[in-house]
């Protein structure tokens, strides 16, 4: 249960993710990100042996944790958690580009922007949330795998793009870091 009922959270439905990287590119164009800065990434995991092989995709970005380890690691107090959506943000003025947040994050979410010499990460598209739009990655997701909502709604199964995709909502999936570490604002659709 969220400390902040307004906490915005991701809902990731691996069953629907086709590993197409539309989410990655949708994010790139929303923020016009240079090569090297990748706020969202699709990770591909190959399991088993031929012919009984299975590939799993994980689309991963900043999980806007309730206890962000990046925030604790930042020596410049550049990282904060805002209240309206619970989004974790890096203040670009204060950031000194030391990369400690990247080292502290279990999800590898902050990346270094070589051009600006600052750390860079997902903002949950807070500028879009504020005007009632879904984040750019969610907007373009081809398989209806990624969605978002207030955490209580996500947990109640109300955040699926359409009821037809509804599944049981769980806290983690194989390959994902232990949620106890930072209490990430992401939930998963149970596949089987």
């Amino acid at each position, binding site marked *: 249960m969220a400390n902040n009922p307004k906490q915005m959270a991701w809902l990731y439905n691996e069953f629907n993710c*086709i590993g*197409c990287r539309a989410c990655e590119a949708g994010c790139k164009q929303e923020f016009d990100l240079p090569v090297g800065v990748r706020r969202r990434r699709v990770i591909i995991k190959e399991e088993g042996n031929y012919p009984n092989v299975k590939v799993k995709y994980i689309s991963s970005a900043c999980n806007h944790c309730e206890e962000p380890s990046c925030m604790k690691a930042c020596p410049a107090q550049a990282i904060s958690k805002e209240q309206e959506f619970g989004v974790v943000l890096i203040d670009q003025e204060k950031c000194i580009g030391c990369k400690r947040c990247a080292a502290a994050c279990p999800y590898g979410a902050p990346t270094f922007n070589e*051009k600006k010499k600052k750390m860079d990460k997902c903002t949950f598209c807070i500028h879009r949330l504020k005007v009632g739009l879904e984040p750019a990655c969610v907007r373009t997701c081809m398989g209806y795998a990624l969605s978002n909502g207030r955490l209580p709604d996500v947990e109640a199964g109300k955040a699926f793009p359409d009821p037809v995709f509804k599944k049981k909502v769980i806290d983690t999936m194989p390959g994902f870091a232990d949620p106890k570490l930072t209490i990430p604002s992401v939930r998963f659709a149970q596949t089987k």
Partner: protein
Amino acid sequence: MSHERVIEKKEKALFEEVTGNKFTRRSFLKWTSALAGTAIASGLLWDDTLGLFREASAQEKMAGEGKWVYTTCHMCGGSTGIKVHVVDGRVVKIEPNEYNPIGVANISSDYAQYRNLGGRMCAKGNSGMRALYDPDRLKKPMKRIGPKGSGKWKAITWEEALDDVAKNLLRIREKYGPETLFWCTEDASFTDMQADFNLLYGSPNFSMHSNTCDVARKASFKLVMGDDRPLPDFSNTKYALVFGWNLLAATKWAHLPGIWNLGRAKGAKMVYVDPFYNQTAAKADEWIPIRPGTDGAFALAIGHEIVKNKWYDEEFLKNYTVGFKKYAELVKDKTPEWAEKISSVPAETTRRIAKELASTKPATVDVWSGPGHHTNATDGGRAITMLPALLGQYDKPGTMMSRQAMGGKRRAFNVDKPKAPRVDGLGTKYPFAHSSGIYTETRDAMISGKPYQLTAAVFMFQNFVMSVPNTKKNIEALKKLDYMVVLDTMMSETAELADIVIPGSHYLERWEINANWVTFPATAIRQPAVKSVINGMTEQEFILALARKMGLKDKDGKTLPDTYPEYMSDQLKNGPIGKTLDEMLALPGAVFIGGDTNYEKYKKSGFSTPSKKIEFYSEQMEKKGLNPLPDYVEPIYNPTPDFPLYLINYKQAEHTHSRTFNNDWLMEMKADNPLLINSATAARLGLKDGDAIWIESPYAKAKATVQVTERIHPEVVALQHGYGHWGFGKIARGALNKINPWSPAGTNDGQFLAGVSEKTSGMAVHKEIGVRLVKA
């Protein structure tokens, strides 16, 4: 917002070296404007008035400003609906257009139900801006001043370019005859007007893309059930059996993943057949690995089981098909054990799949370019497309659907038919070829001079060298031409061999009609979101100006119209839609929807075959001396003891053909294309991940990098198509690849191929060759 492009160190160094001045932005600009009009190397000279200098601006900062323009994507030929956010004449964001069914669903009831989800777009569509503002874009027409392939060019004015092309095409017609011009274009772009240009010029040799894409699929379906591009209703199916179509990656239409997932969410079973476990295999309930080119044998064995067990739909067979008895005779000895020897699919699997398919309705059976890029493609494809026919699974909810297209009506010209036949054997040597021509035959005719010598070529957004099998022959052929024009947005391996290169437009800069690939009538308008970033003419404007300059007209003095929008409006108004262009643009999302998906259309009007029925036995094939039944034929270019592994190619969602490889956002995702090899095979050959190797076929030898995987048949290795550029932009040439210096741009798969076409449909054979691997 920043209006400044970052100028690379290399460019600054070049500037300082050439001018002897210290680099400042002002001195650089002064220099570039002074040099405008003289020799340039693409990507090194800049004219700030063109706006290319400016960095893109993030939508994040521009939300609420500017306007949204509704149009269609052209990062691939799928023409997915998009809307474009434009601020101060600059594109800041591209998003899906929910008024266009492409990107939502291909069945009208699904479209109505899921439109509120807002449409979808792939990684390529999301990276469209990077192509629009690609610094490597051609900015001025270029005339070659050194030998072919020397890379020596002179920038000329648009007027000079028009003069040059007009003068030379008239010279060619006068001296060698109009038929000696080969005109080759991409097929989702104003092919109508280009076809008319060729009519008026008098050349029969007009070809367009599809021949290197899916014409074997077209021929298979057309011969069996009369529609050359039926579409699958995955959303409402209960069972899908898909052969060699990586529909979740070679997406083409952005709704494909959505309708696949809708079907799965509603409980359908999806079975995927392919030598390679790709995205579609990953999102299927079952993957059936198979030897390349043997899908037909597997399908015949499924047919054998259905017939033997009388699982077929007797009523449907009686009323709507011909030749079933002969088909039953053919599959009598095509047992699952027989097919196992050929395809490596276990007989037990075949029996189980046959039973599942026959007992689960509605069922969708589809086939695309996996089996389709082989020398036995049309027959293999027919064996597959007959499976749903046995079960009555056509044109019903959840099956393969015939389309109801609604486009425009072209203006008629009063011209004589060209006296010379086509050089490529369309309709003669290749009796069931598609109107897109036969590329390998045209290429071979350039080399042999038979049946007659082609002397000139125009390539419109077609990288012929990289797209046609057997790269070496392609280059040899193009070097034989007297005059060659390339219209494209960037230099390419093909453009390198041209006499003149005309800068092309980006899809956000031009007009088009897109009759949509859904099962109900829908037509969208592609309209410019911004004016030409390079301050140039669109290809359409160039060709119309060319036609005027050359004085092209028909026997009644009728010419091409003055502008392309006028031409479009004409077509739309006179066609079944009956609206002018302005009326079309006023529709929501600039999309016209003319009705709902209709089912079982064959009950009223029959199937569009000669017999009006589904044809298990094809008399029209028999008349042309082909086997009227879909018997299995061994692929011609199978592995040999010297070249023991099958090499196939495949596509990924991030790329289209060979043309998106200079897009930095897309290349950042995967900078090269390692050769995929099964772990057991790699162990046997002593290869491990990251090794440099030579791939050798009877036709070429080139370096690649090894990627060991469990996701491929042990007898098969695979390269992703489209990599291996040497004449394209700097990113395509490997600028983002920091890993393997031996093949920084990746490895071009086309060079290893024999360079032939399939005998019935003329399909270019892209996936059939044996190779050996040697440690480099």
